[in-house]
């Protein structure tokens, strides 16, 4: 077995799936997945995140997509929490890095039209779920690597949500096939991010920047941006996605590792992410194992579980966790762009309505939001199913 995994023959169930889908992809995914690239991606994410926390980002945060979206929303004036206002360069870097890599590898393709409004709504729900847990799936891993045992509850919730979502996919859930769009459409998201970067650097009066609170905790801009660009590029190449990786475990299990290079790759990437983050946490003195007194945690374990359940469930339905949405938006997927804008809206709502969890626990409003969000996801799942069918073609794209 070589270190590279390339598509050669397709046998059995995989062959059938491939035949049915005719190899269609929503965005040009690579045919070869060097294992080392996945491990490198995980390592870069793990080490960068821990180092950014060491250099100024909030503790155990690395780069949390949901928290950082809340910061960006605050900076743009979408909410009034003066402690949560900063244009996070990491988020900008993810989108722009993905865009640059896609252009470089000639994989940049403007697609869209696959229920963008619904994806916008699910984007809102994803952020609600993340806010209740006080972190996205990426931050969940960083919290675990920092010794926060309460993050295991999030792992359970996320995996449960992914499992539920997969049942809907197996039951024929589909948001419709995306279509090719004029290339200019796909420039919107990267263009918006470049504008945000310009705003961060030149600080016009209408951009708010916190002078205290977590919005004032940030690593040097250039380091954050470079890390974001690098991670965006690598994630675009490998399709790194935590919920995607968990999905593949459920779909094919450990027996399929040898014929599912991307499963192996994503598993290796996630494992590498956690291990490198753990080592970096230990070396920088940020590792503090325990159940109590952890940063960004509380003892509302049921609601933390449900919050991540929303994230897992919703991520599967729109084919990617919040991080993956940013990467896909950068490489030309306007549907993911809609999800990203939904995430930004959700970030604003979470702050304006006080939905997010805090050290004291999950607020009443957050509990109601979690229950209603789950309700919406089940309704969406029911309404968009094509009964009698199995995996829709767009969900088979990029599978091994």
């Amino acid at each position, binding site marked *: 077995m070589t270190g590279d995994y390339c598509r050669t023959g397709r046998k059995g169930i995989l062959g059938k799936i491939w035949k049915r889908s005719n190899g269609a992809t929503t965005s040009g995914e690579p045919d070869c997945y060097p294992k080392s690239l996945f491990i490198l991606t995980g390592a870069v994410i793990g080490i960068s995140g821990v180092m950014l926390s060491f250099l100024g980002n909030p503790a155990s945060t690395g780069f949390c997509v949901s928290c950082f979206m809340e910061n960006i929303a605050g900076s743009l004036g979408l909410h009034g929490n003066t402690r949560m206002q900063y244009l996070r360069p990491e988020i900008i870097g993810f989108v722009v890095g993905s865009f640059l890599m896609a252009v470089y590898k000639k994989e940049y393709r403007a697609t869209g039209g696959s229920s963008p409004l619904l994806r916008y709504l699910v984007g809102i729900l994803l952020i609600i779920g993340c806010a209740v847990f006080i972190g996205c799936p990426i931050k969940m891993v960083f919290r675990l690597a920092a010794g926060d045992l309460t993050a295991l509850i999030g792992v359970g919730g996320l995996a449960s949500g992914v499992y539920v979502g997969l049942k809907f996919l197996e039951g024929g859930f589909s948001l419709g096939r995306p279509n090719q769009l004029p290339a200019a459409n796909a420039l919107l998201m990267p263009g918006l991010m470049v504008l945000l970067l310009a705003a961060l650097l030149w600080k016009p009066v209408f951009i708010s920047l916190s002078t205290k609170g977590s919005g004032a905790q940030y690593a040097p*801009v*250039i380091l954050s941006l470079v890390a974001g660009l690098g991670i965006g590029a690598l994630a675009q190449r490998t399709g790194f996605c935590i919920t995607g990786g968990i999905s593949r475990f459920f779909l094919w299990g450990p027996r399929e590792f040898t014929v599912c290079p991307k499963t192996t790759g994503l598993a290796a990437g996630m494992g590498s992410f956690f291990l490198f983050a753990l080592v970096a946490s230990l070396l920088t003195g940020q590792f503090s194992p325990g159940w109590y007194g952890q940063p960004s945690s509380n003892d509302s374990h049921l609601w933390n579980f449900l919050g991540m359940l929303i994230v897992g469930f919703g991520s599967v339905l729109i084919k990617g966790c919040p991080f993956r949405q940013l990467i896909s938006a950068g490489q030309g997927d306007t549907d993911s762009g809609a999800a990203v804008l939904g995430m930004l809206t959700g970030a604003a709502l979470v702050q304006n309505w006080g939905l997010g969890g805090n050290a004291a626990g999950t607020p009443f409003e957050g509990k109601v939001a979690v229950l209603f969000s789950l309700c919406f996801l089940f309704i969406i799942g029911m309404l968009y199913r094509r009964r009698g069918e199995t995996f829709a073609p767009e969900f088979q794209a990029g599978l091994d």
Partner: protein
Amino acid sequence: MKRAVIFFLVLLASCNAPSAKEEKRTYKIGYMICNSEQETLHRFKPLTAYLSKKLDVPFEASAIDTVDFTRQVDTLDFTHTNSLLYVIMNRNHGVEILAAEKAGSNGARAKGLIITLKKSGIRGVSNLKGKSMVFGPMLGPTSYMSQLDILLRNGIDPEKDLTYSIPPGSYKHEKVIYGVLFGKYDAGAAPLMDFERMVSDGRIDRNEFEVVAEGELIPYCNVAVTQKVDDGFAKRFKQALLDIKKDDTVEVDGEVVKVLERAMVDGYTDVQDKDFDAVREMAKRTNMPPYQRF
């Protein structure tokens, strides 16, 4: 592509990007007065000037009396005190340890002695009952607390079983030693460091004295940082202290002086907060601040 990247980097560099910058202001170091304000500033002004030069940030030295130190700690950025004062400030004001000072035969540690004259015939702690004993300043761990701890652990209540007084004036530790030497008191509580210094200076004869008891080794003088200083800058300050060598010099008032020699220390070493647990336990046993119960 290459040109775009270079242009982008130049653009970035030209902008006043927000980042965690160090505050450019004058930092205040409070030095606990050892013997007199003049003597303290004379010792530590070169160290202060050296740190200013090394860190490229202005520092200001301030000599503060032991009893007033906790009143003024919130106006300071860094502190230089004995270990008991550090424990008090750590508990009540969130001060954090950076480095310990090395001096004398025990390096970064010190101990308190109970001394008598050999000719007094007092050989053990139990012989001190009914005798007169002089202590040093109350907030001195090796001039009062250590010795009080020894007495209490040997069943001697200083309030009932001894006569004692705290001498006024400057050069407190030396005055205690002289008080015993000239027979004014039967026993004295003095730091080992000062005792050794007076012996090496030839001011006293070691053979005339009996060391009746020795306290446990506890951290000596130390440098700490207050809550308001940025952690990154505190780390740099600490490293600068640890890196000071014997031959490092600085110009002060037109004179080039050796920093450590003038400060009368052998250097600075890393120390952890848990190293002060012995001082904490001693303070609890002797009902001293910060664990004093009324």
